[in-house]
C-alpha cells in the first residue's frame, strides 16, 4: 500500500493517473489538494540549463513514508501520495508531486502544505544545477 503512494523514480509521473488512483481509494474523498513542483529556468538570478537530483536510496523513501504516516495521523485526511523524481530534469519538467485527499478541503490544503515543507526539511535529496557559469550543488532554505 505505502509502496504505491510513496515513490522515488527517474521517470516522469502522470498527475492524472496519480490523482485518479488516489481519488478512487475512497468515495468519501470530496477534496483533493495537489502540489506539483516543476523545474524553473532561473534560481537566485542565475539562468539554469538543467538540474540533477540525487538521493540516499532507502533513507529518502523511508522519510517520505514517515511524512505520509505523520500527515495521516495529524490531519483529518484520507490518503496521501508523495512522488519525487531523481536524475536529470530539464527546465519545465515535473520534479515532485504531493496529493492529499480528504473529506473537507481545509484539511487537505493544510496537510499538503505541511508535507512539502517537511519533505524539504527531512528528505535526503540533493540538487545540482547546471548554469552557463558551471555546475553547483544547491542549498535551499525552506
Amino acid at each position, binding site marked *: 500500500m505505502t509502496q504505491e503512494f510513496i515513490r522515488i523514480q527517474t521517470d516522469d509521473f502522470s498527475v492524472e493517473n496519480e490523482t485518479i488512483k488516489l481519488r478512487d481509494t475512497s468515495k468519501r474523498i470530496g477534496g483533493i489538494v495537489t502540489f506539483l513542483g516543476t523545474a524553473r529556468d532561473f534560481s537566485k538570478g542565475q539562468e539554469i540549463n538543467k538540474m540533477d537530483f540525487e538521493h*540516499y536510496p532507502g533513507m529518502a523513501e523511508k522519510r517520505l513514508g514517515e511524512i505520509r504516516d505523520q500527515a495521516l495521523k495529524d490531519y483529518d485526511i484520507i490518503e496521501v501520495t508523495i512522488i519525487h523524481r531523481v536524475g536529470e530534469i530539464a527546465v519545465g519538467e515535473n520534479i515532485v508531486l504531493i496529493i492529499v485527499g480528504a473529506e473537507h478541503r481545509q484539511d487537505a490544503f493544510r496537510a499538503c502544505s505541511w508535507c512539502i515543507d517537511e519533505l524539504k526539511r527531512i528528505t535526503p535529496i540533493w540538487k545540482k544545477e547546471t548554469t552557463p557559469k558551471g555546475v553547483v550543488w544547491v542549498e535551499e*532554505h525552506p
Partner: protein
Amino acid sequence: MTVKVRFFAVLKSLVGKSELSLDVEKGISFGQILGKLKVDFPALDKIMKEGKILVSVNQDVVGADYLLKDGDEIAFLPPFAGGSATH
C-alpha cells in the same frame, strides 16, 4: 570489522569519492570514527566546522557514544534540496 562510509552530493567531490570501506577495531564509537575520518579527510573537517552536515548511521541519527557494529553504514549528508525549485 568493516563499516561503510558514504558521501553525498557536494561531499563526493570535496572528499574525492562517494564511498569507502573502513576496517576498524571492534567497540569503536561513532564519535571516535568521526574524529578519525576528519583526520583522514581535512576537507570534511573543514565543511563540518561550518556546521551544516548531518551524519547518519544506518539511515538514522545516533549519538557520539553509539558503538558501531560490523556492516554499519555511516553517511555524510549535506543540506537537503529536494522538493523543486520553489522556496
